[in-house]
């Protein structure tokens, strides 16, 4: 079983478009949409709704007013300022449980509050595990771990031998949860100043976790000088550039039609992703 995670640092470089293509090309793969904040992969894979499971994250605090003697020990201890008028605002509560431990009357209960949900869906190309985090919720890293472990379970029950993970943008805890322990990280970047800067950041992150990396330059004809700079930067860090995808209107056409761009035979972007997959497949053997 192998795991491929696709990240970018900068948002909008085309991660999900690329991942959608790889999902269509890979045989014997299970797909995980780890971008639980804004899960879009299902929109282009022809997804059938599956059973939704609630995600609770860390338990939140709740004050029992019958037991509460209004001593304010909880509010004094709460560093999130989540307690006001002897009530916990569960949107702000981070689930640290300090109030629960310090309350002299044991008047604080720990309750499950739904923070999102996850689902296993059947798609045109195979099973997709995806999730949605409620707006404003924390514990995104935990939900990412959840969808990854569900993907793992599918593979363990012979649903596939490769897990393709569509990672979140950024470089924070949900990205860390998406990439730890994978066999290969594919970084999708674009030739812009922000694309390069964010590429370097996620490269540092992957180096910190000692992960194998390759890169793909999407929209490469946006700025050919910067494309050269990216190639140089990757070479200096020992990262192979395994794909170069041009700007291509068929990407938008495909997305609007709810399809992957590799299903458009005349698409330059589709051909480039196809070619990249051949190289990736070889590395993942």
């Amino acid at each position, binding site marked *: 079983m192998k795991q491929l995670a696709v990240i970018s640092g900068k948002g909008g470089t085309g991660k999900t478009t690329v991942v959608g293509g790889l999902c269509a090309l890979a045989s014997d793969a299970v797909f995980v949409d780890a971008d639980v904040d*804004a899960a*879009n992969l299902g929109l282009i894979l022809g997804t059938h709704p599956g059973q939704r499971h609630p995600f609770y994250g860390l338990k939140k605090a709740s004050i029992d007013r019958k037991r509460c003697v209004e001593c304010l020990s909880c509010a004094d*201890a709460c560093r999130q300022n989540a307690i006001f008028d002897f009530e916990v605002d569960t949107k702000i509560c*981070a689930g640290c449980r300090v109030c629960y431990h310090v309350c002299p009357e044991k008047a604080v209960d720990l309750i499950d509050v739904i923070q999102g949900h996850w689902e296993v869906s059947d798609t045109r190309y195979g099973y997709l595990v995806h999730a949605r985090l409620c707006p404003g919720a924390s514990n995104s890293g935990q939900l990412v771990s959840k969808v990854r472990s569900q993907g793992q379970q599918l593979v363990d029950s012979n649903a596939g031998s490769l897990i393709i993970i569509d990672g979140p943008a950024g470089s*924070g805890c949900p990205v860390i949860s998406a990439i730890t322990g994978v066999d290969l990280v594919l970084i999708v970047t674009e030739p812009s*100043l922000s694309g390069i800067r964010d590429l370097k950041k996620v490269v540092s992150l992957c180096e910190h976790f000692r992960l194998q990396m390759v890169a793909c330059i999407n929209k490469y004809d946006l700025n050919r000088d910067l494309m050269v700079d990216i190639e140089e930067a990757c070479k200096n860090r020992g990262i192979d550039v395994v794909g170069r995808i041009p700007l291509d*209107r068929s990407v938008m056409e495909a997305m609007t039609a709810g399809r992957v761009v590799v299903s458009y035979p005349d698409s330059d972007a589709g051909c480039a992703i196809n070619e990249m997959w051949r190289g990736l497949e070889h590395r993942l053997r």
Partner: protein
Amino acid sequence: MIGRFERPIHVKWGVSLLLIAVASGKGGTGKTTIAVNLAMVLSETNSVCLVDADAEQPNAHLLLKDLEYEASDVVVPMPVIDNDLCSGCGECVQVCAHNALALVGGKVMVFSDLCHSCGGCVLLCPEGAIVERERTIGTVRRGVAEFEFIQGELNVTQMLVQSVIRAAKQAIGQQLAIIDCPPGSSCAMVEAIRGVDYCLLVTEPTPFGLHDLQLAHEAVRSYQIPSGVVVNRCDIGDDAVLKYCQASGLSVVAELPYDLNVARAGSRGKLAIEVSKEWNDRFSDLARIAVAGKGGLK
């Protein structure tokens, strides 16, 4: 900036009188481009502060020239165990909700990258064996380009992005502030939009743009922030976003066309308003709307 976190509700950050957030559900819709161009246009007639609150991947500075800034660490408290006082009882390990403490061979180890600085272990150690020291998790850079500029940046591998965003907002020193938010609708974005007067939601007319706009809309609605939608690259894609806005009572305050010249200029760090008079006018119009706070919220 060690110590208790600020109360998040109904607090005006710094000395600002008008806070405008630029957010989006989907990444890459043009938030930063719009925030910087907006700040530039507004700075012609106002004292403006631009806050780059996309603390994991701050990029607004790439569009600014001659930026000089001072940096200060963003610190949070982190537990340090006094091994002479520690009895190895393991109470702190039990208390920690984030598994940041472990008892190994009778001694307590602290995994600082997992610590959320709640202070629970300090309060609850029966031996008083835990004190707190400052731990640097990021940087706030404050300086002057064409306007006041503040950037919050979280150090790679660190958690607590909200603390960095909070610190960046606290540094605002002008009466009008534009906040370039992180993409998405998670805790980082919500921290960035908390307390603002008006939010521009930037989207693109594609299925991904629509899907993620709905999530961001939910976030601004739950905090009752008036908002308006900017449809970027409005001529590429379909009309589903416009239909959604109409159905949900969201005002579309600007539709910006796709322009490869602007995209290429942006890739080199050049502003849209420098590309043509039309683009300057578009951002002037948007600035007027944003400051007036037009746009309904249902």
